[in-house]
């Protein structure tokens, strides 16, 4: 029983963290250009200014 007192809050907290992160990602337009993100990995960044 005493384990539950720690484990349940921990489980809920981790779930809330995941939820919070998803909300953050949506607010910052992380899902706006999914195909683009896949393509941008391939860009050769040698001549980019920064």
């Amino acid at each position, binding site marked *: *029983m005493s384990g539950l007192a720690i484990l349940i809050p921990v489980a*809920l907290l981790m779930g809330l963290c995941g939820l919070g992160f998803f909300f953050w990602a949506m607010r910052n337009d992380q899902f706006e*250009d999914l195909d683009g993100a896949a*393509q941008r990995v391939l*860009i050769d960044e040698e001549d980019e200014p920064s």
Partner: protein
Amino acid sequence: MNAITPLGDAQTQAVISRFAVPAIRCAGCIAKIENGLNGEPGILSSRVNFSTKQVAISHLPELAEDQLKQKIEALGFEAQILADNPLSEEKGSTDKLIRALAVAGFGMMNIMLLSVSVWSGATGVTRDLFHWLSALIAVPVIAYSGRPFFASAAMALRYGRTNMDVPISIGILLATGLSLYETATGGAHAYFDGAVMLLFFLLAGRVLDGMMRDRARKGIGALLKQTAPGAMVLIDDGSTQWVATRDLRPGMRMMVAAGSNLAADGVIEKGSSSFDCSLMTGESEAQPKGEGDLVLAGTLNLSSPVVVRVTATGEDTSLSDIARLMDEAGQHRSFYVRIADRAARYYAPAVHSLALLAFAYWMIVGAGWHQSLLIAVAVLIITCPCALGLAVPAAQVVASGALLRKGVMVKDGSALERLAEADYALFDKTGTLTLGHPVPVNLDDLSLNQKQIALALAQASHHPISKAIRTALQAENIIPARLDDVEEVPGEGMKARWDGQPVMLGKPEKSADHLSSQLSVGSDTVILHLKDEIRPDAAAALARLQALGLPASIISGDNIGSVSRVADALGLAAKAGVSPQDKVEAITRLSDSGHKVLMVGDGLNDGPALAAAHVSIAPGSASDVGQQAADAVFTSASLMPVALSVTVARRTMQIVHQNFALAIGYNIIAVPLALTGMVTPLIAAIAMSLSSLIVVGNALRLNGSAK
């Protein structure tokens, strides 16, 4: 298009403009455009959206949109200025639904963890504690995620109607209330898991529905050409300045280059040219107009540059009449009731009276009001239209995804439902049965050598006729010849030297009644005729529609001569010289005699008819008005997608009906269990997820339906 955002550090304000760049295909294109633009003076930042093939540029207000467009074109990409997409207003609603879905998913998983322990035999204090924890999670989750349903149910009840959301809301609220009571009194059964899971599955259906709408609207938004975002205006001192359409005023003089659209109605002051009015009136032949003639906004200047004095802008143009007609015509369509809501009309009263009867029966038998209420809630939960809520959107999303891969964008689920019901097809001629732009018809008169020269000359020009010749020659895999001293003679054509001889592609010496172009190599001359051709497999597509039980006929604003040519070639009945108003009336007559009309059209003049018909489809080359009024847009040159979408829509409705049958079959097994009081929260949870999975699995069979 100009969202003004204040800049934190700079004193000026940045403006964001968006451009459609359909040619973005790879990572290299992204890098080329972004690196190319970011160095330019006045441009603060640029960002390519690969999924939507758009570029968003944040720049100083001094830079006009057409300058930015030229910069993108200088990098080797064709670009179009994008207006605020009028279809994208509802985008925020899907985001809200996704958030609600995420919260419901979080709640469902955590409550389920606690519930599993309760089902495994937790008793006494542990069970009470777990019920309290579940309540603690469930109440805020239901309050947040249930809002879309509660709001819609409240709206329906306020107008004395009922829809799918009414039984859902009542079921969820009753289950939550009863579970809270059970928890407070230390009872054995709490339905928090069931209520939250129900919300999760139903929200999944709503999110699917919303994503399908957004995807199609984004696709169509990228096609919108925004007929003329503005014009080059001549100022008194002789210089020119770019003026956006909304800032044009009567009396201004616009320079209209060949190949551009008119931004406002006006009178030609200088020059003469032929104009393509096909999107406005349906006339396929180019109209020659000279000084003093009236030209309308939205028409395309085909041959040579002219100066036009603006007489009417914005609301006053000839376009506004059509917009008013469309508003009137589109009103009846809002009366269409979607199949899920039609099902709910019978479903909701049946379920509610069943639950009420169960409650009354157990009260009479003497089970006590607590036990009776528990059973009534179990009936509500088990019959809650979980599978029904998923049955329709899942099938429609899979079907529209399959259609999208074939180049048909369906705007929403109700369009598929209405498409399946259509039993008569009306076609516009220009731009719908025909391609809507001239193509050269006698290329075979040219020798290989002449073709190579013609292509090389056509490539160097942006003139619409050159573009048509270029496209046709490139389709034959012709390699352009190497030319020297290529130059454009305004109003005449392209001139160059090939192998020492002068070559030219331009205006023919004697003009024909249709569009033509003259190629001269040395002293040889060949006239190229351009005509608006019938779409490649129009006859086959019409035959397939006929086989599906949709007889077709033509209704066109063009003159009788050109209409009968097409009508004879395709073997259809036809009506020519029809005004937009008459098109709407023809559709009304057909609907009054019991037909459900499918209208296929592209022009501004078809806009009211597209809005008035039971369901409508427009080609991707259609006017903005046409694409916004239509329920679906197809992008290929072939007409086959029209027949294909009818087939797919009917398959979809078959699957939807199967899903309904499955959901009802499941209820026939589950309801007696609930009525006899044998349903525990565990059984409810298993039944609910199982029926949803079966329905979604059945819908996935539509994936290969568009073949």
